[in-house]
């Protein structure tokens, strides 16, 4: 694959940003959008728009079909067994909230334990914290090791006979550690514990096969997969979607509504109340096609090359400390510079068009554990090049110069 050609498919790189060529190293936060995705939204609104699933006129039927086509594309992309196992949400956050809320309602009571890890994003902690408040459940955290990984053994250590669900990241947005999710699922299932995988960082970068992983739930963020904001996916095994109560109530998710009572709709409508992010869902089909065209194996290979190059380069740069050293690692490099706060790093890098993230990356538990209030983070997407990493390295040197290091 030719990265220059791929990069040209992203309009954001056409123009200078504040007189600089954009070096976008913030894809773990959100990826840029290829032209096909942007155009799809425009075309849908200008030529094909109608609400879905309700009216019988031509546009409504066509829009409904387009919307459902994305469901099938996602199903195939992640190799889910059934298209009804794909629920559209407003993001991965909502997907996790949906599970925490409905599973919590039905299956959690006082004293029950939910097992997370220390490297979870706030979106895979706060929804469970709500249950801790409401139902007096306990939250346990599997520990990270010195490499910034969570091992199968660390998970096993925290499982008790009170553990009712395990919810873990696929890939850490800070250390880049790829968790042994298949093994975690096997272990959990041997003890009859369901598993939710927060796949925000996994889905854009790794090959997904739901039937192989065998997890019960998998949360995906659309905007990190070269797709629009406002769309996420909850994959859930059909048995769970049939078993759990609905999440939000409203139009579209019902079967029959009477003064005396209500029956709920079939899957997948049961979990898609109200008017959904129709244009975004339809455009997300283009994101899937875009990734399929390149091939996830090629994306993985390219990002691994960037990671290896970036790690080598930054390790040579004195006073740069790289956070974590996981054996299995995705395209994320979090770092600190002795004597320069991450926010100062980010501001100085930005001056040269190098866009990174600084802060706790919504992982305060992890940063507390590392005893760091904040880190700087460079993360990769399919459009990044080794040249981007050279520019990052140069900008870091400029940073050191300003701070007289």
């Amino acid at each position, binding site marked *: 694959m030719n990265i220059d050609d791929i990069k040209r498919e992203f309009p954001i790189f056409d123009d200078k940003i*504040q007189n600089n060529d954009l070096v976008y190293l913030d894809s773990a936060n959100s990826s840029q959008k290829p032209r096909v995705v942007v155009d799809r939204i425009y075309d849908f609104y200008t030529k094909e728009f109608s609400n879905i699933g309700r009216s019988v006129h031509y546009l409504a039927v066509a829009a409904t079909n387009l919307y459902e086509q994305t469901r099938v594309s996602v199903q195939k992309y992640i190799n889910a067994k059934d298209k009804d196992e794909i629920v559209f949400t407003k993001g991965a956050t909502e997907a996790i909230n949906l599970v925490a809320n409905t599973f919590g309602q039905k299956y959690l009571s006082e004293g029950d334990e939910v097992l997370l890890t220390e490297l979870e994003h706030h979106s895979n902690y706060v929804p469970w914290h709500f249950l801790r408040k409401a139902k007096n459940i306990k939250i346990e955290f599997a520990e990270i090791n010195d490499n910034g990984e969570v091992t199968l053994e660390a998970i096993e250590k925290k499982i008790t006979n009170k553990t009712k669900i395990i919810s873990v990241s696929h890939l850490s947005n800070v250390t880049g550690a790829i968790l042994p999710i298949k093994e975690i699922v096997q272990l959990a299932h041997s003890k009859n514990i369901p598993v939710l995988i927060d796949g925000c960082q996994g889905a854009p970068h790794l090959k997904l096969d739901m039937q192989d992983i065998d997890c019960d739930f998998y949360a995906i963020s659309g905007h990190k997969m070269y797709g629009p904001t406002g769309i996420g996916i909850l994959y859930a095994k059909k048995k769970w979607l049939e078993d759990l109560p609905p999440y939000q109530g409203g139009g579209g998710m019902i079967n029959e509504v009477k003064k005396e009572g209500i029956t709920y709709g079939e899957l997948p409508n049961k979990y898609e109340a109200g008017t959904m992010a129709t244009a975004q869902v339809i455009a997300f089909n283009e994101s899937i096609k875009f990734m399929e065209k390149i091939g996830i194996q090629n994306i993985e290979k390219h990002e691994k090359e960037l990671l290896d190059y970036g790690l080598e380069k930054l390790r040579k740069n004195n006073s740069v400390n790289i956070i974590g050293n996981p054996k299995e690692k995705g395209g994320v490099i979090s770092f600190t510079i002795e*004597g*320069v*706060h*991450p*926010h*100062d790093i980010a*501001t*100085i890098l930005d*001056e040269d068009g190098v866009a990174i993230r*600084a*802060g*706790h990356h919504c992982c*305060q538990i992890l*940063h507390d554990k590392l005893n760091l*209030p*904040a880190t700087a983070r460079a993360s990769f997407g399919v459009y990044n090049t080794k040249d981007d990493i050279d520019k990052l390295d140069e900008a870091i040197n400029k940073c050191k110069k*300003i*701070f*007289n290091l």
Partner: protein
Amino acid sequence: MDLKDLYQEIILDHGKNPRNLGKFDNYNKDAKGNNPLCGDNVHVYLRLNENKKVEDIAFEGHGCAISMASASIMTDMVRGKEEKEVKEIVTDFLGMIKEKDFLESNILKDDEKTKLMSLSGVKQYPMRVKCATLSWHTLTSALDNSDQIVKTEE
């Protein structure tokens, strides 16, 4: 935008070697502030004497060069001043950071104004304004005996 406006020597100096960093025993007012976006936090301690004068002031916390320098310069500046004067300086400083191009309080000497103006570079960096203002809001909160933790985000 020019990084030299933001990272002036005086900022780098105060950022690297913040004055009045720490805590002292006989403080009688204090308040905490934090910036949830970046995890930075500050805790301001001060002692107001019977004449309502700031007898001593210090802060604990961590943050970027801008926030540390701002807290450092602030604590230096208000020591020995009366509560009323401190409040006037805080208002003047926050006004300068937010909208005005200058400081107008007569309480401030010229060299003090120069020091404070060294923080004016953040005006060109909207995301960094709260780094400069956090400790000042926290100082106000301490003076007002507020139990609320100052937050930069609502």
